[in-house]
């Protein structure tokens, strides 16, 4: 039993880590792009926003028949989680960069920073607490949504919960639910600490 919980927990962490990782790698550049292309950025944000509003189980359902990324299993779960994690990361990157004091940007441009230097040295560092807040939300939500991924054979702690529900076995349900809740709380605490540290500088 213990072994099974550990295995499911590790699987759960892998699913969330991979999806949030990909969402960071795609979402931060997309967020930056949205700040540079206001009209197109609004459309991109609307799409990401729409994905977020689809109920998670329905999104899993939609993805199953899609060739290459779909089907039953962990891959589909990860794709769905990536899509879910995008919104908070893209939105917070956009908000964070837009929130940089225009006087500071003005001074940066006037000192001869190139647009790339301005992004790397001024905009991103100053937006970082907000971006990390987005990553925190994506991670915490992702840990929750990942439990539902078991419904389509995605693995992770949801497997124990669903099996417990089917067998009316409270211990089995808790064996999945408690570690999932603990993971979410832990992620929240750790990433909140990172955020605070960044704000203090």
């Amino acid at each position: 039993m213990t072994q099974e919980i550990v295995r499911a927990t590790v699987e759960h962490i892998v699913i969330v880590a991979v999806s949030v990782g990909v969402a960071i790698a795609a979402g931060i550049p997309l967020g930056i792009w949205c700040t540079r292309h206001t009209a197109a950025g609004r459309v991109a944000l609307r799409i990401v926003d729409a994905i977020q509003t689809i109920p998670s189980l329905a999104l899993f359902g939609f993805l199953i028949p899609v060739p290459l990324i779909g089907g039953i299993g962990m891959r589909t779960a990860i794709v769905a989680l990536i899509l879910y994690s995008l919104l908070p990361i893209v939105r917070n990157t956009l908000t964070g960069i837009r929130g940089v004091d225009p006087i500071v940007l003005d001074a940066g441009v006037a000192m001869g920073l190139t647009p790339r230097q301005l992004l790397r040295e001024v905009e991103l560092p100053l937006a970082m607490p907000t971006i990390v807040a987005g990553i925190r939300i994506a991670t915490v939500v992702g840990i929750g949504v990942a439990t539902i991924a078991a419904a389509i054979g995605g693995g992770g702690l949801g497997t124990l919960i669903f099996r417990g529900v089917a067998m009316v076995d409270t211990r089995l349900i808790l064996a999945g639910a408690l570690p999932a809740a603990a993971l979410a709380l832990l992620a929240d605490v750790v990433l909140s600490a990172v955020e605070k540290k960044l704000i203090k500088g």
Partner: protein
Amino acid sequence: MPSSVEFRNVAVGPILHEINLRVAAGEAVAFVGRSGAGKTTTLRLVNGLVRPTSGEVFVDDVPLAQTDLIALRRKTGYIIQGSGLFPHRTVYENIATVPRLLGWDDSRTRAAAEEIMRKLDLPIERFGDRPPRSLSGGEQQRVGIARAMIAGPSILLCDEPFGALDPIVRRDLQDAFRALRSGVTIIFVTHDLAEALRVAERIVLFEGGRIVTDCPAAEFPAQPLPLVQRFVAAASLSA
């Protein structure tokens, strides 16, 4: 080496009309006028933060359209109200920004920072490692001046740099600024005539996006224009 700055028939949308002005290398000119008169826009034309809709700006007789703006900005100091210091960098890192962009080595940057910080009464041992937010408004503005002047700029653009400071700190900074101003062309935007007379040798008065008066500072108070007299009256009250 100070640079010359020239505006030829410059217009910016509805904001500026027919600006013709030559600032000689090494000259210190104050742009005076009410809010919205066009003085800040004119200032921002010099380092290409604003581009003219017609006409052209020349630095050292080269049109800005044919100038590498990034390189020009690195040798043009820019001091603004509120200082615009990078809040995530220390005082020293802020001051070292342009030398770093210019690729100076650490010892040269350090020596230049120590010198300019000493002149501005910001000893590096006491201020170097501090974050800008731990400084008073006047100290932040001194850092802003140091940051603009460390690399020996050819042009110094100042946009109401002391506008948000109390009158005593303001006077101190004007004096510190006067002591530093040799060897550079200065354009100084202010709506305070007393300040303009302290820091500049020539005064250009803007109104409604046009230049209405352009004369040596000493002659300005005697100009008959009603707007000039209103500025003179306002200045003598606050001086």
